[in-house]
């Protein structure tokens, strides 16, 4: 995957109030935002935020309400003007655009999905979806065709002429997404798009967003307050607190190395089995042997380690099967380990599998699970004990 960065934000700050210069000086001295608010009546929505977004990824910004995440996403298309700092999309500095350029920029480069949908209730589904193309001045037949295509893509085919008021929450947000997609911009800004939906619908929509993303490869900036959602969708996750970004990382790295206690607590609120992968928590294989090796030697080593199961591989370390100490004992008259001795077919997993999947395997299997790489070589093992200590 090419790692082309298309959005940069550098030292972006947004203050609301009258005495902004005063507040800035205080903030630069490291005063926290509550004190600044008391002293100057200035609200610090964002302070010194920097991040970059790669082409084709979902960049998730997560934080509690009031952490500045909604302000941040609105700075990207200048629904809010940053007080200071710079934002680029491609080689365009967003803050320098004049009124007319900004309009063109919004029409062609970024579209947005809103938490409470932001749909125009006086228009039908079709007319809502076509809105972006309509303001751009696209011919009616062309824009309606495009709108129909997108309505089909989000699974609302047949609802084109319904009024918005007749739709459920999930359907409304599908319209919101279709409207953003119809504008054919590369960047999609999504401001807590699923927060207003009930959990079952939300899970569906997340799945569908990933599916759409797989097909269309947009660059998505996604806001949420739900850690599970962030880890599920995000290629990179930025966690915000009090108007600052405190850590930006991939979900796996963030779960493994939280920057501070705040991040740790946030991650604990998430279901870790959806985040951690087998590769991150597996242990080296406790006991293994190569086919053709001596049974007696394996038996002895298992006795010493006090374990009753071993993986057996071929000379290239590819998994062949598993053997219990009982079977070795039964076949002690044989010299070498052959396929007849192997009495267990071990469950297998891959390093990138989430623990959620391994959880079920652990329940149904009494023996360790083999973690295999793409070539079928064994790279580690996984047991109930490992799983429990990881969660």
């Amino acid at each position, binding site marked *: 995957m090419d790692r082309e960065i298309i959005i940069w934000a550098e030292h972006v700050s947004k203050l609301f109030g009258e005495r902004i210069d005063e507040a800035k000086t205080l903030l630069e001295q490291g005063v926290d935002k509550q004190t600044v608010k008391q002293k100057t009546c200035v609200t610090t929505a964002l302070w010194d935020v920097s991040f970059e977004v790669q082409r084709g990824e979902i960049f998730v910004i997560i934080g509690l309400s009031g952490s500045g995440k909604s302000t941040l996403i609105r700075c990207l298309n200048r629904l809010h003007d940053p007080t200071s700092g710079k934002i680029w999309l491609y080689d365009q500095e967003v803050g320098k655009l004049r009124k007319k350029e900004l*309009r063109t920029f919004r029409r062609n480069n970024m579209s947005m999905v809103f938490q409470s949908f932001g749909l125009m209730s006086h228009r039908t589904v079709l007319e809502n979806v076509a809105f972006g193309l309509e303001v751009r001045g696209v011919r009616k037949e062309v824009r309606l065709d495009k709108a129909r295509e997108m309505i089909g893509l989000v699974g609302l085919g047949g609802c084109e002429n319904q009024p918005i008021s007749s739709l459920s929450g999930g359907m409304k947000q599908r319209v919101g997404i279709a409207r953003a997609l119809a504008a054919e911009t590369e960047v999609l800004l999504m401001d807590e798009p699923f927060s207003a939906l009930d959990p079952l619908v939300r899970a569906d929509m997340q799945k569908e967003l990933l599916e759409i993303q797989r097909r269309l490869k947009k660059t998505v900036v996604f806001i949420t307050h739900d850690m599970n959602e962030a880890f599920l969708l995000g290629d990179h996750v930025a966690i915000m607190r009090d108007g600052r970004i405190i850590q930006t990382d991939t979900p796996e790295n963030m779960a493994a190395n939280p920057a501070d206690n705040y991040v740790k607590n946030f991650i604990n609120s998430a279901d870790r089995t959806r985040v951690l992968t087998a590769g991150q928590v597996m242990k080296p294989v406790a006991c293994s042997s190569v086919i053709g090796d001596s049974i007696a030697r394996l038996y002895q080593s298992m006795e010493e380690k006090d374990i009753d199961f071993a993986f057996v591989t071929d000379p290239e370390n590819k998994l062949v099967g598993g053997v219990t100490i009982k079977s070795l004992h039964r076949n002690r008259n044989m010299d070498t380990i052959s396929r007849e001795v192997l009495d267990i077919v071990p469950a297998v997993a891959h390093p990138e599998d989430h623990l959620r999947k391994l959880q079920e395997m652990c329940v149904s299997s009494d023996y360790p699970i083999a973690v295999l790489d793409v070539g079928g070589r064994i790279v580690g093992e996984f047991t109930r004990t490992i799983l429990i200590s990881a969660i």
Partner: protein
Amino acid sequence: MDELIDLLTTFPPEWQFSLGNAVDEVIKTFSRNHRDVLSGIRSFIVGGIGGIQKVLLWIPWWILIVLIVALGWRATKKWYKGLLYGLMMFFVASSGLWTHMIETLSIVIASVILSIAIGFPLGIMLAINTKVERMIRPILDLMQTMPAFVYLVPAVILFSTGKTPALIATTIYAIVPMIRLTSHGISHVDKEVIEAAKAFGATTLQSLIKVQIPQALPTIMTGANQTIMMAMSMVVTCALIGANGLGMEILLATNRTEMGKALLPGIAIVFVAIILDRLTQAAAKKKEEHI
């Protein structure tokens, strides 16, 4: 001692001044200096109201009644209500008040057209420009709290008596809800909907025409409905400055203390008001259901 008590209990007469005379003088001078403009406006208004009246009188009475029945039926979706409105109109006609009703209606219609023509754009300006809002809002408060009679006098001085001052006074009185509710409707459109329009690159005008005005339409229609009702009530008062119509009939009958003769046009006014209110309210509601 008595003198001292007098001094403390009554406002000293030498401190009083007469602002009223000064205002009179200003308006009179203005009227004298701009006679041509004023008479131009006057003949334009008289022509306008005359035109509306002619059209209404040209329509045969029974067609108008059938139309009211049909509109009432469609608006309320109940045939008996339509019929009831038709009967009300029939009552007005059979009381010999048809022509008077048309006279009253044409002033109301003219003033509502004027109110909407001025009030709608002004309301939008109020909603999108805080400076204009800060300037206009106190004036609106003043217009709304000032007793309606007060408008009659300057209107008479400027335009003498008849339909013209009646129209001006009625419009000043009735325009306020149109401005207020237009402004309220526009500025209370869901924030995210306006943001969405902006985010997709709509110009201010596009956002206004394609999003804000359609979204605010139910509120704006309610404003128009209130304007109609206020115009209806004011036009009756305007009989005092010589506006012919139902109000004039009541005024004449009251002067002669003829109870019955005053009652009939009174009932006619109520009937017309009910019909206008129900028809326009239904239109507003229909828009709301859509939104």
